[in-house]
């Protein structure tokens, strides 16, 4: 039992009951058994992880080589006291404050074509949540070719403050779902803001939950 600030509010039984009881118990069990990897813990990945932990996804792999920077606070889940800390550890701290009874595995490495198969083996769902277009393409290519069981949920196009409603989830290949507007790039005069990045992250998190709950495994 984790010491609660509010008289045992965070013991496991209490937190289990906090999952929306209107859902049948099979749903909770299926989410609790799921294993999801998140590649990149920036605006997409940190927010995806928060949503999946709140939804009770039982095992999350958190992968990023970077540390929390003050420029991340505009859209990523981190807090000022965490600036300078490795992102996987900082995010795990936040997730433990939402649900300490889920499993969080952290990997502080730069993902390369050579290490993709090692890092992501055993995960049926991989969220692509990198920032650079080249890294996104590399991860999707490597996971789809080297991990024949894995489904990828990728984020592509969420810069700026344009219309929210052009951010969509589409299945583009048999094992690939892509969320985003597909076109708004970062660059001169175009950056990232919390609302559209979080909308895209929510599209990815919801697709992950659909994949878990619609799977026969």
């Amino acid at each position, binding site marked *: 039992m984790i010491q609660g600030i509010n008289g045992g509010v965070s013991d496991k039984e209490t937190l289990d009951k906090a999952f929306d009881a209107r859902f049948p118990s099979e749903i909770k069990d299926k989410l609790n058994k799921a294993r999801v990897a998140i590649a*990149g813990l*920036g*605006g*997409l*990945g940190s927010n995806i992880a928060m949503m999946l932990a709140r939804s009770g996804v039982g095992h999350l792999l958190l992968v990023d080589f970077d540390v929390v920077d003050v420029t991340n606070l505009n859209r990523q889940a981190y807090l000022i006291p965490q600036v300078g800390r490795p992102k996987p550890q900082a995010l795990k701290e936040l997730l433990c404050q939402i649900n300490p009874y889920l499993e969080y595995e952290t990997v502080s490495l730069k993902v390369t074509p050579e290490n993709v198969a090692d890092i992501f083996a055993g995960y049926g769902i991989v969220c692509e*949540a*990198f*920032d*650079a*277009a*080249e890294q*996104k*393409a590399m991860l*999707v*290519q490597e996971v*789809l*070719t080297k991990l024949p069981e894995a489904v990828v949920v*990728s*984020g*592509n*196009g*969420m*810069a700026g403050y344009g219309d929210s409603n052009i951010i969509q989830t589409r299945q*583009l*290949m*048999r094992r*690939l779902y*892509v969320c985003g507007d*597909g*076109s*708004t*790039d*970062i*660059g001169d005069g175009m950056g*990232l803001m919390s609302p559209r*990045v979080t909308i895209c992250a929510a599209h990815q998190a919801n697709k992950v939950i659909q994949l878990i709950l619609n799977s026969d495994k």
Partner: protein
Amino acid sequence: MVTVNGEQKDIAGSNLYTFLKEEGYELSRVVIELNLDIIPKEELENITIKDEDVIEVLRFVGGG
């Protein structure tokens, strides 16, 4: 005819690498699927597009 991202194109016989470069794709930012198989980038130059091929080119943009 060849289907590229859902559109019909008269490009049978063309080299896949040359076609992608002519279309302006930056190869480091795309994933290419040919008839449901993901194609490694180093193989693109060896592939001749055939009639009735179905090609999907997914172009990534930055941000996350």
